[in-house]
Structures are given as structure tokens and as C-alpha cells.
């Protein structure tokens, strides 16, 4: 292929390929393109040396610049934390009431609490804090262990039936299983409790009332008012920790049931715990 034909019009060598009289020009690549290509090759070699590039068996080449995206990220996070140092220090010193009263600390607490909630709490209580079967809804005003911001703070710190000395703990007897009540009695008490929750005025006429007064009133209070000191749920409203049908109430009285929540005091720092308490309290149900 020594003498390739030359195109008459452009004066450029052709490839010799021809289709229906149309010949393909063998126009060389533009020079600047070629130089850009060479520059990229040189750049790539420099990049291998300067930056992390090649995977090794259990490691990778670090590059002379020692660049690391992970280190960059932790540096950026540290910088943000440093920028919050003043707010963090003030939050650490302030009481929960003071945090709520200070607009700046409140905003900081709500933002910090929201993200801490998403990371630590949403797995059980749900991303919108609406709870689910056995996990309380944190939006409403029905609190088992108290809904003031201090009580919420204590619950978060020490947990419920958790491995901590100050944890909130109680146990409801398994009336049916331990044969304190026979199935008919359980059924009667259940009817009474369901009537309390409906609040339609028929509860007082039911035979279960006497049994309730005998066995339940010490904790759940007269008329199902509940007792936050003991962690005895209010029975008078339409809000249930487990599904609110009679079968559940029968099962509850027969076998008893109790959930647990971990103590967070050793897992999260003090500032985060305060922020969480303020955030949960702000969801709307806080007393």
C-alpha cells in the first residue's frame, strides 16, 4: 500500500475504500487533538504517582499526596463540629427548660435531635415517630412513663427494662397464666377495659368492674386513668400500645407482655441526649 490515491478536491490521501464512487478520505487527526491526547497520557501517569490509584492484594497505592476522601470527610465533619462548639457547650450547660426557652439552642436541638433520632431511634419508633405494634407512637400525648421533657430525657437515658440501675421497670402479672383469674373473669375484665376505652358510659354497668377494682386499680388507677409513676398505661383513651381489640386485651391479661428499650446514656453523649429529648418533646405530644 505504498501509493494511496489522492483525492483531487481536498488533496488528501484516501484510504482506497470506495463505495459507489465515493471515496473515504484519510484525513489525519487534528494536531491539537493529538497533543491533547498525549497530554492526557502524561497527566494519567502523574495521577498514578500523586493520587491513590492501583489496587493491591490487601491495600492500595496511596499516592505521594496522601489524598483520602475518607480523611477529607472526617476533616469536614470535624470543621462543622468545631463551628458548633459554642452551641454545643451552651447546650451541655443548659437545662432542658433553658434549651426550650432559647430560640437558638432550640433550633440547634431540634436539628441535632432530628438526625440523632433518624440514626438511633427510627428503627423501632419509625421515621415519623408514629411507632408500631409494641413501639409507642411518640407524636401523641399518651405517655406511659411521662411526657414532660425531663421525663422523656430520663426514659431515653436509662431505657425501659434495660440493663441499667436507673432503668424504668415494672411487670404486669400474667393473671390468666398464673391462674389468678379464670378465663371467664379475664373475659369480663376485658369487656370492662374495652368499654373504658370507648368512653361510652356503659363501663360502670359491667360485671368486670368489680374484678378490675380488685386486681387492676392499684396500678391502672380508678376508671383506667393510668399511672405514669409506675408506667401503667392509661386505659381510658383510644390509644393502644398493641392493637386495640378485645382479643389483644384478653391475651394481655392472660399472659402479660412487656417491651424493652435500651438505655442510651452510655451510648450517646450528653448533648445528643438532651437534643433527642427536646426533639421528641417537640413532636407534639409532650406535656
Amino acid at each position: 500500500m505504498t501509493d494511496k490515491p489522492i483525492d483531487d478536491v481536498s488533496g488528501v490521501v484516501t484510504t482506497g475504500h470506495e463505495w459507489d464512487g465515493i471515496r473515504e478520505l484519510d484525513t489525519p487527526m487534528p494536531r491539537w487533538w493529538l497533543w491533547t491526547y498525549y497530554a492526557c497520557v502524561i497527566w494519567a501517569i502523574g495521577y498514578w504517582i500523586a493520587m491513590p490509584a492501583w489496587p493491591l492484594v490487601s491495600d492500595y497505592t496511596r499516592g505521594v499526596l496522601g489524598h483520602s476522601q475518607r480523611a477529607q470527610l472526617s476533616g469536614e465533619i470535624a470543621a462543622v463540629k468545631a463551628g458548633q462548639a459554642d452551641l454545643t457547650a451552651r447546650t451541655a450547660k443548659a437545662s432542658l427548660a433553658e434549651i426550650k426557652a432559647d430560640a437558638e439552642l432550640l433550633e440547634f436541638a431540634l436539628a441535632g435531635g432530628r438526625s440523632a433520632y433518624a440514626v438511633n431511634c427510627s428503627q423501632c419508633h419509625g421515621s415519623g415517630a408514629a411507632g408500631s405494634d409494641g413501639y409507642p407512637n411518640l407524636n401523641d400525648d399518651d405517655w406511659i412513663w411521662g411526657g414532660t421533657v425531663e421525663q422523656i430525657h430520663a426514659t431515653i437515658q436509662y431505657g425501659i427494662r434495660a440493663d441499667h440501675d436507673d432503668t424504668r421497670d415494672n411487670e404486669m402479672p400474667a393473671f390468666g397464666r398464673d391462674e389468678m383469674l379464670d378465663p371467664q373473669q379475664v373475659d369480663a375484665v376485658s369487656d370492662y377495659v374495652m368499654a373504658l376505652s370507648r368512653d361510652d358510659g356503659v363501663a360502670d354497668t359491667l360485671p368486670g368492674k368489680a374484678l378490675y377494682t380488685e386486681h387492676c386499680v392499684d396500678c391502672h388507677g380508678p376508671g383506667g386513668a393510668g399511672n405514669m409513676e409506675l408506667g401503667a398505661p392509661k386505659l381510658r383513651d383510644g390509644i393502644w400500645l398493641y392493637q386495640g381489640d378485645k382479643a389483644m386485651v384478653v391475651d394481655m391479661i392472660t399472659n402479660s407482655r412487656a417491651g424493652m428499650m435500651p438505655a442510651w446514656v452510655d451510648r450517646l453523649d450528653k448533648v445528643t441526649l438532651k437534643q433527642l429529648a427536646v426533639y421528641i418533646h417537640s413532636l407534639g405530644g409532650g406535656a
Partner: protein
Amino acid sequence: MVTAAQKPEALDPHDQVETVDAKALNTRVTGALYKKREKIFPRRVAGTFRNLKWVVMAVTLTVYYLAPWLRWDRAGDAPDQAILIDIPARRFYFFFIEIWPQEVYYITGILVIAALALFLFTSIAGRVWCGYTCPQTVWVDLFLIVERFIDGDRNSRMRLETARWGLAKIFKRVVKHGIWLMIAALTGGAWVFYFADAPSLLVDLFTLQAGEVAYITVAVLTATTYSLGGLAREQVCTYMCPWPRIQAAMIDEESLIISYQERRGEPRGRGGQRDALGDCVSCNQCVVVCPMGIDIRDGMQLECISCALCVDACNSVMDKIGKPRGLIGYNTLSNFAEGSELKRSDLRLFRPRTIVYGVLIAVVGVIMLAALVTRPSLELNVQRDRNPLFVNLSSGDIRNGYTVKILNKLHDTRQFRLQVDGLKAAKIRVIGREDGAALFTVKPDRLASFRVLIATPKASLKDETTDIRLRVIDAENGTTAHNDTVFRGPKP
């Protein structure tokens, strides 16, 4: 037949016209599709249109360089720069107008009007935008002034181009490109002043305190101004710009174009048998002044930017030889096709095309003006909680949560009341406002966000969703804004 030889006492005006042996570099008849760029050395020319172009250039450059330095008093702590695109604070200021980012439709409207005005002017007078006001044309003219000042006019520039490299040539080249780069840097430099407080940014730029975005912007615009205005020049218009292709659709037979009167000019030439010749003396002045390197006598060409410099060149020649002006001049396309000259009666400003563009401009302008005049000083946005959709309270009430955003576009602190329409016995609670204060305070020119909880007895809900309207009312002047949303509850 009267010739110069027979009447030697009279100075023949034709001899005062210099004939240049020049060929248009960009003609319609060059064979190859691919060709190397040939440099164009447009000669200086004086005349009506050149003067008009100087004026346009002075006005546009003055506006561009000085506009960011105009001050405008604004209330509160708003910036006092008349024209400012404040990206960090997300505000656009234009004299008495202030625009928030979500009101970008004002800018869209201005762009629509600008595009329609471009169509209108093109359909009336052809490529006037290209020839007079396009930044490419203006800056190329600016760069040409420098080039002529350093290197001289056409002939000396051509000599210098082919001259051997020596000290003088190197010196001239260094000075020329140096000044070009300075102009380019000033162009890029002026641009960034539209985006920050100009006086303080100027100080920051020179004390190396300005943000890196400012330096990058200046550098990029310096590079583009230098390479497009100084180096690429006519190539930008011919090969890069899409407008010459689009504008063919705007031009009709009544539009003005720059054209050569072929019937009057031909056969062109000079010499013995002058009576047999047309008015064109083949001096080629129209060719050498052309910044696009074309010969207008070849007819309408896509390269022509209608800068009218050939008109000035030809008119001055016609003046010298005592012939009427207008051998090259503005003419309508239909006249040009017939070969007749432009008469005032040929100008038809009002024809369907221009009327449609004019009406469209008026309509968009009126809409824009109405929107601006009725621009609300208060806006309300409401986002409903979606998780959970609603909350049962122990009292039997149903509660919904809303994020309420109030946009205060005035430069005063304002207080608002919140009202719920369409929900019976609604109880409103605002998070962070446990004192029960009913007023929302919003700082000047700011958006404030509040979390609002609304509760109502279950009995007052007839359906799963209830349409409600949240309304904020300015406590002082009663201005209101509202937002429609829903209140959700359980299945009744």
C-alpha cells in the same frame, strides 16, 4: 468621449480613488470545502455608519462597564447596588425591583421580550444586531482599534504579518497581545462586579481576598474574550454562532439587507471607455474594509453581518467621483431582486410579520408589568406532615402537623396571625411557642418556617380528608396570603 488624456487641465476625480488589488477571502466560489483560515486585515473607514457604530460601541461598553457601579438606596440592610445578582443571598436586584429565586419567571419574561425584539428588528432591518450591538462585533472593533494603533492600517499590518521575525515585530506583537489581554481581563473583571458589591470586590480582587469563583470567572472570561474577540473574530460569526442560520427564517422580502446595485454598477471598471461602464470603478474599497472578508458585490452571503462599513467605503468613493451615493447601501430584498433602488415608499414597517412580533412584545410586556405591579409582598407555603398522616390524641381529638413557611418580601419586620378556614373547633399550636403567642414574627426580607399543629375533635370530621385553607394575616396592614391543604383523619 471625454477622457483624462484629452483634458489634462482638469484633475480627473477618478485618479483620486485608490484601487486596491484585493480579492475577497471568503467568496462563494472557493472550491474546497476545507481550507485553512486566511487572515483578514480590514482597512479603516470613515462615514455615517462607522460613526453610528462608534456611538453604539461607546454606549454599550459604557453601560457594561459602569452599570455595576450605580448605587441605589434600599431600605434596611439590603445592598445599595443598583444591579446585583446576589447568589449567596439568593436575590436579584434591579433598581427598584427585587426578585426572589422562585420568581425567575420575571427573567424568563425579559428573555422572551429580548428574543421577540431580536426577531422584530431582524425582520425590519436584517442583521442589525450582528452589525452594531452584538458583543462579538463590539469587542472585535475594540481589538481592531488596538491593532491599528500598534501595527498601522491594512497595508502595514499585511507587511508585518509576512515580515521576518525581528525585534520590532516581536515588540509590536507583545504590546498588541498584552493590551488585548488587558482589555480581556477588564471585560472579565467587569462581569464579576454584577455578582457582588462592586467597590469592595474591587479591593478584594487586588488584595487577593476575593473568592476563588471570582478569579476563575475573570480568568475564563479573559480567555474567551481574548480568543474570540482577538484571535477568532469573524470565525465566531461564520462557524460558531447559530444566529446567522436562524435569522434566515426572520428575513422576508421587505427586510433591509446590505446590497450592491448591480444594474447601476455593472459593467464595473475604469479606463478609456467610461461611458460604457457602470458606476463601480472596481476600486475594491468595499472588499478591503470588510471585517468578514467578503465581496458584497457577489450578493447576499451568510458571512455578511450587515455592519455597513462597505456602504461608508463606497459612499466616500462615489463622493469623490461625483456620483450619487448608494451604489452599496441598505435595500429591501425584493428591490434587490428587481435591481431597483430603495425609495422611502419601499419601507414597509407595518406588515403581518412585524405586527405579530410587535403585538407579542406588547402582550408579554403587559403581562410582565402586571405581574410586577401586583407582585405580592407576602407568600405562604404549607407542607403537610406525611408521616404520620394524623395523630390520635388521648382526648379523642385528631391532630395534623404542618410546616408553615411565611415569605416576607418587605424590608420591615412583620407580624402575622394564622387562621384556619374550613375546620370546626380547630385548635392551633405552634412548636417552640409554648407561651401561646398568636403572632408569627418574620424578619425583613426573609422566609420563616414554623411547625404548626392543628387539632380538632373526631366528631367534627365527616370524611378521611377535609379541605382546609390556612391564612396568614399581617397584624398591622391586614395583607393576607393563603394556601389550600387538607386535614386528614381516620375513616369515620
